[in-house]
């Protein structure tokens, strides 16, 4: 049973890294606030299901609300240069966590508990697995599509992308909306699976961790974000005692990879 629990958690990580990869790996837009969208999806499911609304609609609404915030952040990103975008996403993460802490209905520091889990102990992991496979499928479909190529082209050179007919603004926003919407869905799964959510679960450290997972594995690839989620996520599960040093570890790993192998461990060599 413990193995199933770990595997389910790692699948949720995988949905997060793959969704972040759409934004950062493919479209090249730095995001250090991905955990906020995970949190938005989780809190929507937490609030709605503890008020008697069934999981399925709550889950979808969670994804849509996260995507809505993604649309706002994506639109803001159009006006920002790379480094300022990173700062804006960090700021967004802190604002969202503060909202979870201080707005009524969100349960303050204790968060929300008693979130019902649908489908039972055997069924729910299957839903998580199915979702993960669906996200893998979508990720690959997008990567092989005109949309994916448009993302990669604007990542490489915005002026050149525009010059060959790519609406850079539109496709940046598309990347944010899709990526953050999927992160919201991951949040809904997490909330229902764990049953208890707290503001600190969705803080900036998780955003750094996710970016490290994607970057260490290899941005823009399929196996990079997957391996990042499963290997680094598995490592964190196996060595729970490093928890306090986790951010230091991931930060260090991120810095080392950026310095010595910027394409990631599984990225192709140029």
């Amino acid at each position, binding site marked *: 049973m413990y193995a199933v629990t770990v595997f389910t958690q790692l699948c949720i990580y995988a949905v997060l890294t793959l969704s972040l990869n759409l934004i950062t790996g493919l479209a090249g837009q730095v995001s250090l606030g991905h955990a906020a969208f995970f949190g938005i999806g989780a809190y929507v499911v937490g609030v709605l299901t503890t008020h008697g609304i069934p999981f399925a609609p709550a889950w979808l609404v969670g994804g849509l609300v996260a995507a809505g915030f993604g649309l706002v952040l994506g639109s803001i990103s159009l006006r920002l240069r790379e480094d300022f975008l990173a700062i804006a996403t960090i700021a967004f993460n802190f604002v969202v966590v503060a909202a979870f802490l201080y707005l009524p209905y969100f349960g303050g520091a204790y968060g929300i508990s008693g979130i019902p889990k649908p489908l039972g102990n055997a069924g729910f992991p299957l839903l998580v697995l199915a979702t993960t496979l669906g996200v893998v499928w979508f990720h690959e479909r*997008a990567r092989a599509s005109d*949309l994916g*190529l448009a993302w990669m082209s604007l990542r490489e050179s915005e002026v050149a992308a*525009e010059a060959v*007919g790519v*609406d850079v603004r539109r496709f940046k926003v*598309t990347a944010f909306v899709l990526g953050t919407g999927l992160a919201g869905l991951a949040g809904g799964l997490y909330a229902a699976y764990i049953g208890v959510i707290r503001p600190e679960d969705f803080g900036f450290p998780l955003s750094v961790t996710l970016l490290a997972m994607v970057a260490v594995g290899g941005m823009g690839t399929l196996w990079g974000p997957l391996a990042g989620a499963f290997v680094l996520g598995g490592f964190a599960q196996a060595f729970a005692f490093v928890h306090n040093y986790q951010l230091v570890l991931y930060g260090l790993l991120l810095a080392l990879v950026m310095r010595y192998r910027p394409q990631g461990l599984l990225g192709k060599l140029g």
Partner: protein
Amino acid sequence: MTVLEARNLTKRFGGLVAVSGVHLRVDAGELLGLFGPNGAGKTTLFNLISGTLRPDEGEVVFYGEPITHLPPHARARRGIARTFQVVQAFGELTVLENVLTALAHRALTGWLPLGRYDAPVRRRAAMELLERVGLASRAGERAKNLPLGLLKRLEVARSLALQPKLLLLDEPLGGLNLRESEQLLEVLLALRGQTTMVLVEHNVRMALPVCDRAVAMDAGRVIAEGRPEDVRRHPQVIEAYLGEGEDA
């Protein structure tokens, strides 16, 4: 037939008037050369035509229709293609993918264009374009690994994938050695008659003789226009280049 008309275009950067009341007409099928010393406003004029910059005054008219309000990608889709003074290849993508990006332009209509970008028809079209510029054998390589001479040709192939009605070439020979320059000129001259082209070039000696018509700019204004040889001998053109002491 007139392909493009710039009417009274003016662009200011703070106190500097980079382009000042410029009129320019490009006729179908011609190769128009745009010359002038550094800072004459050639690249700014290109950016106004391609939409990278918006003019402070004046209009850009493409096939009789004003396009001044259109963003660059919309102008590209209408058939205004360009290359860049500082090469802008998609470095991490392969040479083939660089061309496929431009071939995808018709499919990029909605918010979720999920059709395959490397469908066989498109691959064939991309390979044909690469053959035209002599890059077919490098199709699978990442663009960032190509030398400058080949990247310039890649930009031409990528532009041609738009099936352009107007091709703007911003210093295509810049930074190339003599052999590379000749090879690129050969590629461009093969397009002559089929594609309307405007060529900005610093290397007047090589580029001027191949142009059908020439326009000379200095300090943001058009100072001479006409047959290449006449423009070259125009007193104001000679004067404008005197400070540079080369070429002209």
